[in-house]
């Protein structure tokens, strides 16, 4: 409004510098303004401002809505989680027990529920910084979440791509989506239809950037099968080191791959089984060199500090040889072979076999190796080896140790084995562990058990939460009795209780009253 602009300009400069004249307006406002005394400049300016400002405020014209608008979202067909569950999410987003978020998201997806709409921005933001949670998040945001993500470039990992028109939605997303979304697509597909994922990737492989190639080929870890072998074999010649490394690693996990066969040939003759006074012994011949074909197959020529060069090569080579080769050639069970490896050069042999056992998931070998390592206290990466067992066999292994000696001293192997059981524990293992724990706490003056805290906190994340009621009851002795460990126990109890509550809250979903 012109009159207003005049007022503002004069007011900015000041009536001292710019004389003020009451502006002319039309309509009823004029009647008011004409009554102002022009002689008293300041008062006139202020009064006019008051009048015109109120006039504008009251008579404000309405803005028109934009003609082009976002297409509305399709309604979701999956129910929302309950308000109580949303409260748990709120706590986790506020950094309380935030490490439990993956478990919560997985449980939500398993129960086929979704997030209430108002929580979508917060969780999509979490996915922005924590890439490992993206797959879990995308499963629970529902159609509304995808619709929302499409409007914010920082959330592009959650977009389904331009899915308008008929055709394979996965292919469309693969062609048109952003890098983050395509990666998630591959991860999801490898779980359900690995061949399809490989097809999609093979089609555009040559055009992908180096970083993308490395990330994409890493997804082959899931759903790995012999059908992937040709693709991976070709990738051994890729320009980027990372891609070659991943390909070699994955091929080493496929016993019938050409890589494993080549490795077997190289190793043939290097190890000989000798019978020596009724005990078997393994004689070792060292490899002569680390040549180009070996490097292509993933052997790293440079040893880690403290290791001998040739021993290093040998253990890597052993890591890619199918373990069946040894049992077939020598006609001995794994335990016997491991026993026969006693001697000066035991370390590289155990390391190599451990690597092979981990890759090939041979439980007999793993257990034999573990027993050997526990007996002789060899310094090998035991937790990783242990983790390669199936959950059932892990528990069996630990339980056998616990039954033999239920004490939880930090010197015992169960002390690191239990936290290495990174799967939801069975009721049985949970109960046996708790018995050990109670006995330990009762027997000991736990003043020295500062290591117990980290131990307990690890276990709190995997123990069966259904036992939480019992745990709380049995450990209800006043804190003073437990001394230094009280803090650890408190944290243990709070984590177990929280897991119990949050999973309980997901049982019932929020019924929409629409």
């Amino acid at each position: 409004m012109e009159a207003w602009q005049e007022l503002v300009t004069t007011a900015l400069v000041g009536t001292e510098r710019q004389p003020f004249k009451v502006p002319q307006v039309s309509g009823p406002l004029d009647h008011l303004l004409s009554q102002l005394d022009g002689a008293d400049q300041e008062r006139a300016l202020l009064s006019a401002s008051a009048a015109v400002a109120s006039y504008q405020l009251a008579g404000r014209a309405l803005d028109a809505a934009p003609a082009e608008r976002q297409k509305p979202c399709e309604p979701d067909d999956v129910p929302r989680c309950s308000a109580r569950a949303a409260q748990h999410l709120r706590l986790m987003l506020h950094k309380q027990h935030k490490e439990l978020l993956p478990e919560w998201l997985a449980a939500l997806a398993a129960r086929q529920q979704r997030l209430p709409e108002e929580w979508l921005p917060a969780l999509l933001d979490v996915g922005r910084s924590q890439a490992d949670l993206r797959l879990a998040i995308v499963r629970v945001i529902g159609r509304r979440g995808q619709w929302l993500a499409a409007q914010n470039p920082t959330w592009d990992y959650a977009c389904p791509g331009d899915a308008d028109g008929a055709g394979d939605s996965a292919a469309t997303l693969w062609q048109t989506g952003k890098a983050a979304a395509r990666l998630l697509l591959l991860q999801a597909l490898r779980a359900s239809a690995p061949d399809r994922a490989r097809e999609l990737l093979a089609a555009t492989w040559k055009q992908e950037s180096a970083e993308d190639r490395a990330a994409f080929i890493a997804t082959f870890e899931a759903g790995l099968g012999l059908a992937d072998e040709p693709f991976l074999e070709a990738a051994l010649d890729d320009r980027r080191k990372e891609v070659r490394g991943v390909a070699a690693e994955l091929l080493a996990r496929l016993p019938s791959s050409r890589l494993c066969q080549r490795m077997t040939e190289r190793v043939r003759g290097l190890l000989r089984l000798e019978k020596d006074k009724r005990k078997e012994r393994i004689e070792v011949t060292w490899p002569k060199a680390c040549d180009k074909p070996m490097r292509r197959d993933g052997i790293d020529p440079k040893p880690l500090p403290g290791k001998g060069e040739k021993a290093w090569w040998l253990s890597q080579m052993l890591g890619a040889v199918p373990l069946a080769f040894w049992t077939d050639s020598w006609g001995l069970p794994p335990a016997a072979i491991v026993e026969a490896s006693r001697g000066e050069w035991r370390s590289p042999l155990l390391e190599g076999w451990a690597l092979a056992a981990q890759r090939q998931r041979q439980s007999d070998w793993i257990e034999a190796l573990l027993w050997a390592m526990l007996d002789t206290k060899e310094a090998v990466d035991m937790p990783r080896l242990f983790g390669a067992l199936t959950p059932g066999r892990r528990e069996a292994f630990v339980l056998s140790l616990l039954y033999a000696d239920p004490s939880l001293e930090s010197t015992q192997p169960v002390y690191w084995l239990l936290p290495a059981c990174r799967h939801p524990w069975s009721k049985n293992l949970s109960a046996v562990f708790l018995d050990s724990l109670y006995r330990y706490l009762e027997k000991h003056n736990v003043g020295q058990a500062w290591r117990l805290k980290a131990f307990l906190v690890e276990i709190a994340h995997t123990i069966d939460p259904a036992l939480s009621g019992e745990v709380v009851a049995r450990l209800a002795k006043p804190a003073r009795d437990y001394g230094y460990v009280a803090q650890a126990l408190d944290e243990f109890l709070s984590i177990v209780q929280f897991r119990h509550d949050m999973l309980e809250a997901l049982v019932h979903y929020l019924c929409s009253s629409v």
Partner: protein
Amino acid sequence: MEWTVDQVLQLAPDPASAKAGKTLALARKWSSLGRTERAAWGECQGSGKAAYQTRIDLNEPAFKCSCPSRKFPCKHALGLFLLLVNQPELFAQLAPPAWVSDWLEGRQKRAEQRAGRKPRAEGVSDEKAQAKRAAERESKVSLGLDDLDLWLRDLVRQGLAWAQTQRPKFWETAAARMEDAQAPGLARMLQELPGVYSSGEGWQDRLLERLGRLHLLVEAYKRLDRLPEAVQADLRSAIGWTQSQDDLLAGPGVSDCWLVLGQRVEIEKKLQAQRTWLWGQLGGRAALVWQFAYGKQALDTSLVPGTALEAELAFYPSAYPLRALVKARQAVISQMDVTGGYETIAAAVEAYTVALSHNPWIRQFPWLLQNVVVTQQPGDRYGACDRAGHLVDLSPQFTHTYFDYGRGGWVLLALSGGQPLSLFGEWDGSSLLPLSAWADGRFVNF
């Protein structure tokens, strides 16, 4: 009870305050010391020009000091208290001055209300004292407004651009003078002015609007007697006159089933102000319950957004009554259905216009908009569109703030999903500040 030094130091909010309090516990820093059985007071020369007035109610204990410190109790209160404990002979038994007795009476009244007792019958001497105080206040306010008039004229004579170059003291002193003149509403308005300079594009317009509004107040007050009573009430409340709650509660009330639709807390130095909006389901009128808390006092949490309350409200007199008190409450209903309000933006704006024509000093106007779709606008702005094809801007104070749920604008967009929902918020003439939404049968409070 007898207080010891240790006990007093225990009251300190942090070690720094305790130390500062100890340095102030010296007789030479204080003047006008006095006490009664239940209270003590004094004036301390601070860093400012005027002395700080500090009072202690020994029963609770409770403190009030005129210094700008946010701590509670402040170092002056601690110092005064320590002085009282160490050197009680310095405090003569005197009749408390107005600034002490006013405070004590206010506390007494609030305590009695809480206990549910009726205030004791006013004797003749009380009436006289009250009338005297009322007259004193009127004259103080009058003088204060004359001051303000001169200040405003000065401001427009030298220009808004000139005022921008002034030091913060320029505004603070003006606001402080209003406080002294017992016009806290005006003081608040003046305190907000320097912020307008940094409020972005169009600050000149907004600043001039506010100055115009202040000028309107000044002019109106000069003609107070000739204005209708309802307008007088609005004028007084804009200035910051508090009305006795007892009188209000004794008067007539409006019964309805009230939806508690939104709540907003604003914090300003030591003062927390909470606005709770109610919307009558049967009568279709809105009500504002406006509460304050000083320092560490807790705000009243008896009104919960998302519930419906069967209650009788008593409205403050006004040309467009909005502010109210809960006179009597019956049942609280936790399930509610958000119906009523405005079906189009045009209807909402019209209601605002009508309200303004009655009371031009309305700051926030309640809008319950039905069937609006939230959209993203260019320039990282958000708007609400109604079915008639109009749009209102949503305040960046909401859309750019991060809540538990995430950034406000995105949360609203997520709730709307391109579909219509009901939105409740405060309209200030240019943008809507959302306080809650009702979508898909669910109430979401921000």
